[in-house]
């Protein structure tokens, strides 16, 4: 029996001493394999007396079971150690920075984003988006809009002209989006509710003027819309666009050839810091011109101004973008400086909606 005890302690010590699964297997084979020490002992059972066998049989079987368990336990320990070692060897530096994903690095220009914001707001009020060509006729840019020939108001527009054609016609770059009012009224039966965003051009250049800029125009024509509706539409627009709960507004009488009565709209702002803050403070900021569509304009579009009426307004898209998002210089809008676009631009998946908030 003492032999068996020695054998057991030797084998268990060998098992505990193994460092790899392969070594463990060697120990297992040396003990329990066909020619293993325990197996050899088992073979001796047959030559024993029944009495001897009665003692040695269970002892050997017990030893075999004990060793088997010990091997299994050691195997688990070794497997765990091996996994740990592998994991340790597989360690990487997860602080390594990644490349920016393209969807993260691309940007939408503020003018496009603001047009989408305008679309979201006005679509909710039942407006469609109308468009027209940049190259216009004098008729649609001025005459049909009630700018009399030679009127000083024409002078104020600093128009870009094309060369006179053989038939005497001289095309121009539209100085405002208003010719699309005429195109819309001539081609669409009232009721009309459209906004008209687009590029416009004037021969002018400084920090707040560029020879090309963007305007958005609004037009409502039906049989009952009046100045009270215009006030409401513009108030709701200002609140929604500037994302403020309330805003003080001031309508001032003004003059535009294509509206009568004509007004300009000032909104409340605070200029005390470096930036203009909309919807607070004591200062006024002019943001748009508006009015009831002039009877002559309605008539010029083939409608009876005693039956049809409505209102229109117009403002600079770049300008309201600057007011909302704080760009100081209009010229930078058209410079395509990636630093500017990345700073003032918008993420590609930030689609403005009313239900999700225009810009948040």
């Amino acid at each position, binding site marked *: 029996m003492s032999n068996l005890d020695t054998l057991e302690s030797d084998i268990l010590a060998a098992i505990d001493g193994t460092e790899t699964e392969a070594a463990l297997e060697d120990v297992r084979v040396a003990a329990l394999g066909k020619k293993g020490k325990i197996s050899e002992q088992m073979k001796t059972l047959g030559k024993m007396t029944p009495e001897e066998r009665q003692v040695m049989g269970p002892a050997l079987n017990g030893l075999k079971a004990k060793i088997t368990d010990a091997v299994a336990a050691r195997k688990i320990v070794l497997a765990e150690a091996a996994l740990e070692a592998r994991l340790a060897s597989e360690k990487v530096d997860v602080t*390594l920075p990644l*490349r920016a994903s*393209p*969807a993260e*690095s*691309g*940007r*939408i*220009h503020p003018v*496009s984003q603001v047009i*989408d914001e305008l*679309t979201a707001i006005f*679509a909710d009020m*039942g407006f*469609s*988006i109308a468009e027209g060509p*940049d*190259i216009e006729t004098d008729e649609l840019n001025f005459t049909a809009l009630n700018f009399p*020939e*030679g009127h*000083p108001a024409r002078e104020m527009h600093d128009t*870009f002209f*094309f*060369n*006179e054609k053989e038939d005497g016609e*001289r095309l121009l*770059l539209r100085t405002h989006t208003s010719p699309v009012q005429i195109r819309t009224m001539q081609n669409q039966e009232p*009721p009309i509710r459209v906004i008209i965003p687009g*590029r416009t051009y004037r*021969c002018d*250049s400084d920090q707040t003027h560029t*020879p090309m800029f963007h305007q958005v125009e609004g037009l409502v024509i039906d049989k009952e819309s009046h*100045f*009270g*509706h215009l*006030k*409401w*539409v513009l*108030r709701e627009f200002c609140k929604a666009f500037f994302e403020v709960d309330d805003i003080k507004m001031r*309508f*001032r*009488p*003004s*003059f535009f050839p294509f509206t*009568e*009565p004509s007004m*300009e709209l000032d909104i409340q702002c605070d200029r005390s810091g470096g930036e203009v803050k909309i919807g607070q403070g004591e200062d006024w900021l002019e943001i748009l011109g508006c009015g*009831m569509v*002039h*009877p*002559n304009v309605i008539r010029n579009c083939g409608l009876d101004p005693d039956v049809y*009426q409505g209102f229109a307004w117009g403002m600079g898209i770049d300008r309201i973008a600057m007011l909302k998002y704080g760009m100081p210089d209009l010229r930078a809008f058209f410079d*395509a*400086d*990636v*630093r500017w676009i990345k700073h003032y*631009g918008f*993420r*590609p*998946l930030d689609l403005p909606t009313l239900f999700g908030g225009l810009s948040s």
Partner: protein
Amino acid sequence: MKFTLSWLKEHLETEASLEEIVERLTMIGLEVEEVTNRADRLKPFKIAKVLEAEQHPNADRLRVLKVDTGEGDPVQIVCGAPNARAGLVGVLGKPGDHIPGLDITLSVGKIRDVESFGMMCSERELELSDEHDGILDLPADAPVGVSYAEWAGLDEPVIEIGLTPNRPDCTGVYGIARDLAAAGLGKLKERSHAQLRGSYPCPTNVTLEFGDTKPMCKAFGLRMVRGIKNGPSPKWLQDRLTAIGLRPINILVDITNYITFDQGRPLHVFDADKVQGNLVVRRGKAGESLDGLNGKSYELDDTICVISDENSVESLGGILGGEPSGCTEETVNVLIESALWDEDDIAATGRKLGVNTDARYRFERGVDPDYMMPGLEYATRMVMDLCGGEPSEAIQAGDIPETSNIIEFPYAEIKRLSGVDVSQAETNVTLKSLGFWISGSGDTVKVAAPSWRPDIEGKADLVEEVIRIIGLDRVSFTPLPRTGTVGQKVLTTGQIRRNRARRALATRGFNEAVTWSFISKDQAEMFGGGGADLALANPISHEMTDMRPSLLPGLLAAAQRNADRGFGDVALFEIGQIFENDTPEGQKMVATGVRRGTAKFQGTGRHWSGASDEVDVFDAKADAEAALAAIGAQVEKLQVYTDAPDTFHPGRSGCLKLGPKNTLAVFGEVHPATLAKLDIEGPLVAFEINLDALPQPKNKGGRSKGALNASHLMPVRRDFAFLVGKDVTAGTLLKAARGAEKNLIADVTLFDIYEGQGVPEDHKSVAIDVLLQPRQKTLTDEEIDVISKKIIANVEKATGGSLRS
């Protein structure tokens, strides 16, 4: 239009404060742009008297003054003004005072070793005028120690309004007072200019001679005042003029300027002794010229209306007087002109000659015709009051045009257009206070506008007059009724495509640019444009002369600008209009992008995970396909052609087409010669997408996507490698493979191209992976063999190549 508060109160009896007046002006449409008070910045400056003036010991041109400030000991001042002398009374600035005209703050100085405790100021230094020949030289009795601004009458608010072009009546202070009175801010002091009896006939006659051409002068009033004594104007008149930025000249000229701003009535005065014979108002003649009172000379022609005497042209009618017959302090006999000119002719002449005068400003907007002769009376009265003299009878050539335009005005029009209820009584009071005439009773009345309101045309104008005076705040916010139940789709296909292409390109790492619609002629020509119909007649610079035929020049230039700033790896795109011709149909919407340097989809520049290569044609192709997919094109059905425009690299560019004639997109490396001509460094790849070229989506009648037809059978993959000629395109090979058994071949992937050892010269090995998707039953080995043979045969036939063994 500028005026002072006291000038306004000359016409308006009011208790209102400056703030109330300013607020009301703005709210009735006379927007106040600025209120200034020159006294504010001149506060520290006091009147001082020079007691002694001695030669500076170390400088020939300087003097050392002892100046009495009115308090304490005299102070020592070093002064370089030529008129500095003992006894002069002037204006002193002391250490610590800010000199507005120099924008400096004075301190105690040492000039050539002599201390100076301030300075005696010139007009320019105090921003009173441009005068800088010497220091202010006040009358000897000016009170020493008193505030100069206060003494000089400068302590007064000057109000500047931004006048809209429809309000000629408010080019005079009187008209502004009338509007304020109507708005309830005081009482208008009625003007009356009693007709003066002349004691002799006007010795100079005037005739309007336009023959059978269109008359450019409607009427002309003239009168002589003889035996006058001209000279500098009295202080009150000079003060009024200088306060609004006009320079006093002499009494006669100052009177014309004063009445121009007081009544909006421009006048002219001739020195009668310099006028030969009678005056004729006529068209100018080629070859004639005039030396104007502004010191400039003008060449004339028959589009310009002139006043001439027997010898020569004396005045540009309604715009500018002539220097030779101008009034000076020596003038003793004066001819006063008050005339009525054609608005459009005045505007055209002013534009043509580039003359902007206070007279032109008023005449081109339209002055009150009925005030022509009263204005002449007013001027005559002022001349007699200030210069004495004896007036002749007034004469008038031409007729004052009839202005009364009678408008049928239903009171309900106010409610219809403005939404506000205004009673008939309130309407009547408002219109009458503005000078309108109302007749009749009931719901519709007849209204006539006063002669000073040429802008009033019809009912809508009357509505404006009423609501601007009663206040736009009376109009309440009225919700615009909703048109339907929920919002409708409001965007057109074109608008939707632009939005989708924009967002798709931005998700590919592009930054959106907006570049100018006009480019230089050279660039336009290089990109297929530059036609005469698209060239501006008056471009703002030579870089912006022609409407762009492509967005590429602008984007390429933008990429280079970024590179020049140190950001060479940029991806920029723009969605915008290009111009094929000057018709609305010739304006097309395109989406164009450029990638420069290593600005690839995966990222730019060097990185631990692997540096980005330079951009290549396949980056541009991927962008074009992605944008096309975003706008609804079935990209796998497009054909790839290699006939891109010659601004692209001929061997590294292509077109994506729907049939041979419908090009949806072009892509590729930009041609090195194009870059060289534009002075731009590559590598640069680009794509251009014609957003309108894709056919409109068909309305399929329903939004169902149909059932998913996924097979439950395992797909089978088979690889093939072919040896084909070097020029055989992948497209040809893939098409042949795909076409071998359309029902079973679900996909073909090209996974390897190899040239070199083991492949014959001028050949390449192309390896493909074919995915077979059985639908009814699992394929047997024999069936797969049959399909494989078909694929091989198809590819060999199409490419002339062979299976690589």
